[in-house]
């Protein structure tokens, strides 16, 4: 049976984290990863901890990784500069690379072939957040679609796994799994692959990290 996974919830308080975990369970998710610790939401869903590291310099990134790798199940890096993107692409402690949601910032930072070459075969994933595709003006949305599609073309050429997440910071920004895979049509993603982006690929990341964290003293 397929398990849906939302690897990116960004609640602002622990209470909201619990509310979002319960909603995720009702929407049909089996696993979630949240940037705020979540009190046990029940048997139907498992929660993992996640950190989003925002860094502009590779030194900042390395220091943050030293502090947080063992404390979180999922480590994601928002690449705010080329320097950070290159460092993130070659660092084994990182699970997910994501790029700024603002199209202007994204103009300077995107997944290029050099970074993709470094990621190739490592299991690190590129993340698409559905929140980037919601509710923006048509002009902004068209820019975001173009930029994500450019990254996806590079990822596909280098066989980099792609994760689809909600990126929701409030319960209202959360959607059911089929809605997220439907939103992937905007990026010309094949339906079957969109389902994998929301199930088997993120589930493999969680399983790999749980195994790693168990092994470490």
């Amino acid at each position, binding site marked *: 049976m397929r398990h849906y996974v939302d690897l990116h919830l960004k609640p602002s308080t622990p209470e909201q984290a619990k509310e979002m975990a319960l909603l995720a369970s009702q929407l049909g998710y089996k696993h979630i990863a949240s940037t705020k610790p979540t009190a046990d939401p029940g048997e139907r869903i498992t929660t993992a901890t996640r950190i989003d590291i925002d860094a502009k310099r590779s030194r900042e990134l390395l220091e943050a990784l030293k502090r947080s790798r063992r404390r979180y199940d999922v480590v994601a890096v928002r690449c705010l500069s080329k320097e950070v993107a290159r460092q993130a692409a070659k660092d084994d402690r990182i699970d997910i690379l994501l790029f700024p949601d603002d199209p202007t910032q994204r103009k300077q930072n995107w997944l290029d072939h050099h970074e993709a070459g470094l990621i190739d075969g490592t299991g690190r994933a590129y993340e698409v957040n559905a929140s980037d595709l919601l*509710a923006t003006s*048509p002009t902004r*949305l068209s820019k975001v679609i173009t930029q994500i599609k450019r990254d996806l073309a590079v990822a596909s050429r280098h066989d980099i796994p792609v994760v689809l997440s909600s990126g929701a910071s409030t319960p209202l920004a959360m959607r059911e799994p089929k*809605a997220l895979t439907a*939103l992937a049509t905007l990026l010309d993603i094949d339906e079957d692959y969109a389902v994998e982006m929301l199930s088997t690929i993120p589930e493999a990341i969680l399983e790999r990290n749980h195994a790693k964290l168990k092994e470490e003293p």
Partner: protein
Amino acid sequence: MPVRGIRRRYLLFNVSTGSAPEEKAIWEALRDSILTLYGAKGLSLIDPNLIEYNEETKNGIVRCTHDTERFLRASLASIVNVSGTPAAIRVQRTSGTIKALRKKAGIEKPKKETE
């Protein structure tokens, strides 16, 4: 020559919002969302029709052509406000006939249709 009718899909949705939006506001939000994502041609292909909307339960049924269900789902998902109030529209069930959808969801036929 026998002509086969157009195949449709019916989607039962729920609106999550702090206010109580009217049916017209839901329809306008949906139409605008389709126009933003797929344009006038997309609107024509999807051929959406808001069959019913209950303002008390905030549940509704919308119809589209059979092969455009994903586009309608994406359009519903990308609605983030209705009449200026933050909102989310989530699909709960889908079916090929309105009768089966109502049966599965335990929704009674609106009175005005039965009279």
